[in-house]
């Protein structure tokens, strides 16, 4: 048992923190959001230069071989900065799928492109009525000549408009919610038959609705129909990453709030001197620490070879982080008073990102139910 960062991990943390501090401020972030892709392409290039895109890939694929803890370190800093780039969809979800669901040749070829900064990925998986059910896949894949032809509608595809390649889930057999019969495909978003409706999200990112009409897709891996295990693994890694991102955002939100109540004066004294606010700030700290612990737990379990244990840990983490981010996020606005309600202060932007993280890859109730059905957490 050891919860300390290794020397290398500490270096990684310092490097990312410094980079984010240099490149991300409240105003610069606002400018990046107005870029056509929804972020600054130069930052993506810089991620490549700093090795952040090589991080999740094995050394033999030209990567650095980072694991769950390294992902946590990066995502925490991204949460602090409210970073806008598709790092999670590329280096967490995409990399996980390539690691577990692609042929060696596919993985090596794509890893090279991703590491160099030339390929951003988006995961086109969710469908309209699926809610949080990962197995809900109605999109069809039919063999056509050498490859597959895909038809269906994907929704809420984060960074769908910025991606150079889409990873699309589709059914080769079985009924809509069957565990068997799902496969993953690489799709070129400019291929004929793909249409994208790109829109802004409540928390300042961009997502897309993706319509596929007889689109050519390259099958990932060589076992069509066995895709669900790959998807569940990737989703758990995404949950661990989101928990870490939430922790970063919560940590920053707490700092902003404490700074604010130290400096804001009413009734002739700093409002932070009122015990009613001190206790609330203390409760926020408690929530942050609980969330931090669970984010660590999830990131250490996210690649557990036992899918049952892995998924239990990730559900427990997402449920706790969901509760904590609500309690902390809502209080952070409350303690700011009116200024917390404005787009002109950064606190509201943190609150909004946290509130949306709560609804990604399953909310509190969803994960409690999953855990409950799995018999709860073992002692």
């Amino acid at each position, binding site marked *: 048992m050891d919860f300390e960062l290794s020397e290398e991990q500490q270096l990684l943390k310092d490097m990312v923190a410094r980079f984010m501090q240099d490149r991300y401020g409240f105003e610069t972030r606002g400018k990046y959001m107005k870029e056509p892709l929804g972020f600054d392409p130069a930052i993506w290039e810089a991620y490549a230069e700093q090795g952040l895109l090589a991080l999740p890939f094995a050394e033999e694929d030209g990567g650095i071989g980072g694991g769950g803890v390294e992902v946590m370190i990066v995502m925490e800093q991204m949460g602090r900065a409210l970073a806008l780039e598709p790092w999670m969809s590329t280096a967490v979800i995409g990399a996980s799928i390539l690691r577990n669901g692609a042929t060696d040749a596919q993985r090596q070829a794509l890893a090279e492109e991703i590491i160099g900064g030339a390929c951003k990925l988006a995961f086109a998986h*969710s469908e*309209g*009525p699926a*809610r*949080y*059910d990962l197995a809900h896949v109605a999109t069809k894949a039919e063999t056509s000549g050498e490859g597959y032809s895909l038809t269906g509608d994907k*929704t*809420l595809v984060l960074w769908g408009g910025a991606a150079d390649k889409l990873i699309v889930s589709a059914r080769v057999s079985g009924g809509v*919610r069957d565990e068997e019969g799902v496969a993953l495909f690489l799709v070129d978003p400019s291929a004929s038959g793909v249409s994208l*409706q790109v*829109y*802004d*999200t*409540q*928390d300042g990112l961009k*997502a897309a*609705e993706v319509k596929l009409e007889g689109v050519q897709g390259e099958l990932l891996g060589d076992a069509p129909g066995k895709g669900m295990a790959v998807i569940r693994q990737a989703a758990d890694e995404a949950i661990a990453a989101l928990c870490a991102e939430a922790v970063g955002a919560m940590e920053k939100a707490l700092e902003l709030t404490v700074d604010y109540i130290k400096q804001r*004066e*009413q*009734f*002739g004294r700093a409002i932070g001197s*009122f015990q*009613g*606010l001190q206790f609330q700030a203390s409760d926020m700290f408690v929530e942050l620490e609980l969330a931090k612990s669970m984010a660590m737990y999830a990131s250490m379990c996210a690649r557990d070879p036992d899918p049952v244990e892995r998924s239990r840990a990730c559900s427990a983490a997402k449920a706790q982080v969901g509760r904590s981010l*609500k309690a902390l996020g*809502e209080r952070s*606005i*409350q303690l700011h*008073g*009116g200024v*917390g*309600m*404005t*787009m*002109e202060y950064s606190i*509201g*932007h943190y*609150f*909004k990102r946290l*509130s*949306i993280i*709560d*609804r*990604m890859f399953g*909310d509190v*109730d969803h994960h*409690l*139910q999953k855990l409950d059905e799995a018999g709860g957490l073992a002692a």
Partner: protein
Amino acid sequence: MELEFTAEEKAFRKEVRSFIQENLPAETRQRVKEGRGTSREMMVEWMKILAAKGWSAPRWPAEYGGPGWTPIQQYIFLEELQFNHAPEPQGFNISMVGPVIYTFGNEEQKKHFLPKLLDCEYWFCQGFSEPGAGSDLASLKTKAVRDGDHYIVNGQKTWTTFAQHANWMFALVRTDPDAPKKQMGISYIVFPMDLPGITVRPIQTIDGGVEVNEVFFDDVRVPVSGLIGEENKGWDYAKFLLGNERIGIARVGASKAKIQRIKELAASMPVGEGSLMDDPRFRQKVVETEVKLKALEMTQLRVLSDIAVRGGKKPHPASSVLKLVGSEIQQTCTHLLMDVVGPYAMPKSTGGEGSNEPSVGPDWADAIAPGYFNYRKVTIYGGSSEVQRGIIAKAILGL
């Protein structure tokens, strides 16, 4: 003790309900129901409809153009509006400045302003808060210096709701900077918003909308005829105004309507083979909220009965619970709606009215997250939850 309303009161409720059903414009109803907020035009249109019926100022005595209702009728009326997705009467006009004018204003002011408040010919905004004066309102700095028949006003107000819609403002300004207590040097004045030297700057809120503004005053010459009551007594009038707000402040009707909507939408949200309403975890949260809302409603009725039966001269101690719990329940409802909408909380509205872009997810989904964000305000304004708890501790518990 008697829980039932009288036959007359029940008949009155029916009358109000059918009036709303027959007269509330469909689009306005839809916007209120979906939590999208109403435009100035919609609000004014509805105020004119209510005014024509004599119902736009439920609390006002008949001599000033109100319906002269009993407290219980006022309550029933407000509850029916809230429950049936009708906008409440424009609050700044009807609940705030109107009662101050008919209680403390002179005859000329009553004659001039009251009719124009009733049908929203004048749209008032409230200029109380300043950047440095929020919870500690008495520390306000905007000053008004007498110069013949005018006050010369300099300073800044902020968080001014719908200043962009308003053609008049009522404001607290400092007229005696040397008063022995800061509460004592404040006056209550009203003036048109198009006076030279007034600048309104919109503030975008976290829901993406613009409902509050900063208002700057640069040597604004306000006619002295806009002083309400006596100079330097403005604090008393402001306090009177706040004490006046005991009926409808809990917004029980609005929360009832929200819960009904939560259930409807949850039943339309597919989860697996069924809907979200089949999920016991979700239903438990809804029913817990319903119980709390019932407790709030009964508390509201106790306060109401105190006013109706015993005259309610001194505020009932339970009245301090109304704003505190009412605002928290409203927030719980917006969070339950987040539970309902689930992942479709994420997309921002794709373009609003007239846009050709199809909506992403259910067509009501894009208003849910903004509603949750926006309702953080209800525990901040009108006396924050912390301030409310402070009042209970000091004034009621004697701590």
